[in-house]
């Protein structure tokens, strides 16, 4: 499915002294089967934007379209099953007494039978590597364990679009890699993934396309190569190294991910 935002504005607490304009005319789309990275500074509107993709927040003005139709016309619960959102604070996502019950919540809501619920729950726990925590109370988890439980709870819906808000914050380095592996695998299976992150190095690893937010507006959009080489201040470490080398050795090409960068630097040194 394709989600697009057309000139979306979002104002928090309009008409009060606390009024804050968080989105200022954002237009962008999430294409079927792609990984869209959303980066930007603190308070630039990333989480606000993410919550518009499943209409957990409604635009103050502008429209959200799903496959060309106004998303407001869809059943909310249906929309939210198809567009799974994982919150920035995992603690906020967990509400059931145990991990297992929490992950089973969405499949139960979908009206699946007990076997299907169990199958999906076990699968989601397995993908995130937390099968051993199934019986744990959700409040007796470490930060990284909470993060994984929260992602599992959304994955169990098998959404067509998965929106992850800072999913690797609090994960150890191996777990971060494993999660990026999960993202790649989902894309291969045809799921679109929206990855909100301030960690440019990890966005560079998996994104097909990037959107850079600043002050509630889209500042740049394009493939990682275009965006990063267009503005080195936004670039991840790999691109900063490669760009520096290119100044003296223009034949290097424009690698972005770690493996690409390693390969092209090796070729340069070797040849």
């Amino acid at each position, binding site marked *: 499915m394709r989600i697009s935002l057309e000139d979306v504005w979002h104002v*928090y*607490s309009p008409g009060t002294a*606390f009024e*804050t304009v968080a989105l200022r005319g954002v237009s962008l789309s999430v294409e079927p089967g792609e990984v869209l990275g959303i980066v*930007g*500074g*603190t*308070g630039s509107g990333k*989480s606000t934007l993410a919550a518009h993709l499943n209409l957990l927040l409604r635009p103050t003005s502008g429209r959200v379209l799903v496959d060309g139709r106004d998303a407001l016309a869809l059943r909310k619960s249906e929309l939210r099953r198809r567009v799974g959102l994982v919150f*920035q*604070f995992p*603690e906020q996502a967990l509400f059931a007494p145990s991990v297992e019950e929490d992950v089973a919540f969405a499949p139960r809501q979908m009206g699946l039978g007990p076997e299907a619920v169990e199958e999906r729950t076990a699968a989601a726990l397995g993908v995130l590597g937390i099968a051993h925590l199934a019986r744990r109370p959700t409040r007796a*988890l*470490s*930060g*990284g*364990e909470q993060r*994984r439980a929260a992602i599992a709870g959304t994955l169990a819906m098998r959404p067509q679009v998965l929106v992850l808000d*800072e999913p690797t*914050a*609090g*994960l*150890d*380095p*191996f*777990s*971060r*890699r494993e999660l990026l592996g999960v993202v790649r695998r989902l894309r291969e299976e045809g799921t679109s993934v929206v990855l909100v992150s*301030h960690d*440019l*190095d990890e966005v560079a690893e998996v994104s097909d396309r990037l959107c850079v937010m600043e002050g509630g507006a889209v500042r740049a959009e394009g493939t990682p190569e275009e965006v990063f080489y267009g503005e080195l201040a936004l670039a*991840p*470490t*790999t691109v*900063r*190294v*490669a760009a*520096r*080398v290119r100044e*003296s*050795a223009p034949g290097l090409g424009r690698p972005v991910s*770690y493996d690409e*960068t*390693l390969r092209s*630097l*090796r070729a*340069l*040194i070797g040849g």
Partner: protein
Amino acid sequence: MGPNGGGKSTLVRLLNGLLVPDSGEVAVAGHDPVTEPFEVRKRTGVLFQNPENGLVAPFVEDDVAFGLENLGVPREEMRRRVAEAIRSVGLSGYERREPHTLSGGEKQRVALAGLLAVEPEVLLLDEPTSMLDAPGRREVLRRIGGLRRSKTVLHVTHHLEELLEADRVLVINGGRLVAEVEPGRLMADAALLEENRLVPPTVPRLAADLGLGSCRTPEDLAGAVLRRVWEGSGAEIR
């Protein structure tokens, strides 16, 4: 450092007296956090892993002032330190905002400002940069670096590059202290990294994979690559 569920946050809570050890003893500046919690707490500041958990007041500036109020700091000095702390985390203009309406990174900055305003002897920071953008992260690391001579800082993180300047790195895995090393030694010890689910930062990792010597910054690495290229081509010409 150490894998998820290793026991880092538990350790932080033991040092602050929020958890009581089942056996063994804890001493912070010579005081037991369980029997003399206030003696310990007036000397230590904690930044919780989830910044939301540390916020207590309905407005940003009151929250930042809370620790100072408890220490009985005079009002004039308090105003100065609160304003300075808010400015140093880049939140000027947010004084009258309600903390629960802030973005993730903004909450983390407020929590940090509350700590910087007090400047306690011991800072216990549980993943203080997990939700910050790159400039925010650099700024916080700079502030922490500035405190290192005069204060004791315990900095929990999953990013090895944040600890390159640390005096010592403790690796905690499965509830045990499995290593105590200098950051340079840790980075060079592939087996130790692997066992503890750690990955070196991108620059040294690339340098190692390319068979170049140790490099710190992207510029260093680019320089090393180019030198190698020139050497290679020079040799061919000769």
